[in-house]
């Protein structure tokens, strides 16, 4: 299979890669770039564990070919922390006990991150809609919603 060259920005850093065209964005993030915070759950767009933010929008990295992300700006969970400081969403997830096994959390964080970027004052329904595509097997939805609300309130202060 002929390899192709792609480049995109991940968490502010330029990545130049030579990859097989059948690699998904998820594979490249995890295997080539070592960004294993992005999780692989179902592989078919059902669970949201692989969610990243691509050009400002939450997307499934398991449903995007890496080649399709050429030229894009991507944020993964590793990019939320700034200068060693946790993102307000991350802090509130911890404070509200929203993290149990943790497997769904990177996806939850990025879905919430994309929501707050677009809508800094979400209603509860907006939050529910934003994370409807993120499954939590530990079923801590309530705490997750509370954490997002709390982070949004901090935003407003």
């Amino acid at each position: 299979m002929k390899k192709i060259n792609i480049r995109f920005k991940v968490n502010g850093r330029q990545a130049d890669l030579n990859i097989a065209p059948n690699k998904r964005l998820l594979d490249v993030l995890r295997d080539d770039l070592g960004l294993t915070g992005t999780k692989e759950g179902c592989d078919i767009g059902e669970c949201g564990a692989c969610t990243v933010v691509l050009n400002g929008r939450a997307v499934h990295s398991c449903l995007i070919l890496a080649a399709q992300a050429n030229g894009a700006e991507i944020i993964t969970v590793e990019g939320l922390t700034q200068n060693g400081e946790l993102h307000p969403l991350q802090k509130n997830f911890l404070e509200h006990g929203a993290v149990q096994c943790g497997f769904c959390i990177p996806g939850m964080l990025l879905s919430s991150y994309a929501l707050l970027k677009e809508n800094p004052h979400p209603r509860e329904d907006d939050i529910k809609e934003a994370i409807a595509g993120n499954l939590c097997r530990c079923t801590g939805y309530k705490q997750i919603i509370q954490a997002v609300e709390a982070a949004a309130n901090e935003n407003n202060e």
Partner: protein
Amino acid sequence: MIPEIGYIRPRNLREALEALGENRETIRVIAGGTDIIPGFHINSRRFRDIRTLVDISGLPDLTFVDLENDGLHIGGAVTFTDIVKNPIIREEYPLLAQAAFRVGSVQIRNRATIAGNFVNNAPCADSVPPLLVYDAVIKIQSTRSEKTLPLEDFLLKPYKTQLQPDEIVSEIVLPPLKKEYRGEFYKLGRRRSVAISRITLAVLVKLQDRTIEDIRIASGAVTPIGRRFRELEDLAKGETAEVDFLKELSVKLGEEILKITGLRWSSAYKLPVVQQMFYLLLRRVCNR
């Protein structure tokens, strides 16, 4: 696993069509990928022959929404998120915006495209019933030809359309709609969100006082493909929109659907739901 494939990223529609024209048998378009990539994973027969993908996602030639004299032109690769957010669609063609909002999850809507929703002619394509009641016309292009035809004619049978391997659905045109039309959209899935449709209904009504001057009815998921109900529409035109007649029409819709699908295990619950919901939709549009 995604099979070994080649990947082409055209710079415009022309290049995409040329690539498709050269290798008709083994080349396929990818846009949002929300159908094709899970399809690869389950080794779906529909995608087994593919050797090369032509990526049209985000192509400016296919991602416009333009209001013109002959209606609203929506590029084939416009995503559902962009449809949900578009002020003209929300205002003038609200059933399409509502249906778009019920597609998958945020992540799916951010990638999945409008033409991608119906080019495979899956019965559960949510955008189809609204597009049908809006009398959508689609434009199909290849290096050989360019044609427009009603979406209704394009959809042949489950997973079969008129699309040829070297063609792309470049745009969807929604003709102008008189302000007097009122509409409703209904979707039933097995759960509240991120659900595959079991039943979708769309209805548009134009009343003159209490008389039904025009009515358009379409269904999806509950019928083998999304379709209009012309006979019922003709029967309803000129009738008075009062309770008894609306009930009669709803019962008839259920009977029509049963005729099309035959009795199935799910008929026992779907039929009453279709009839009851259609009646409620009619009540809502006619009493507004």
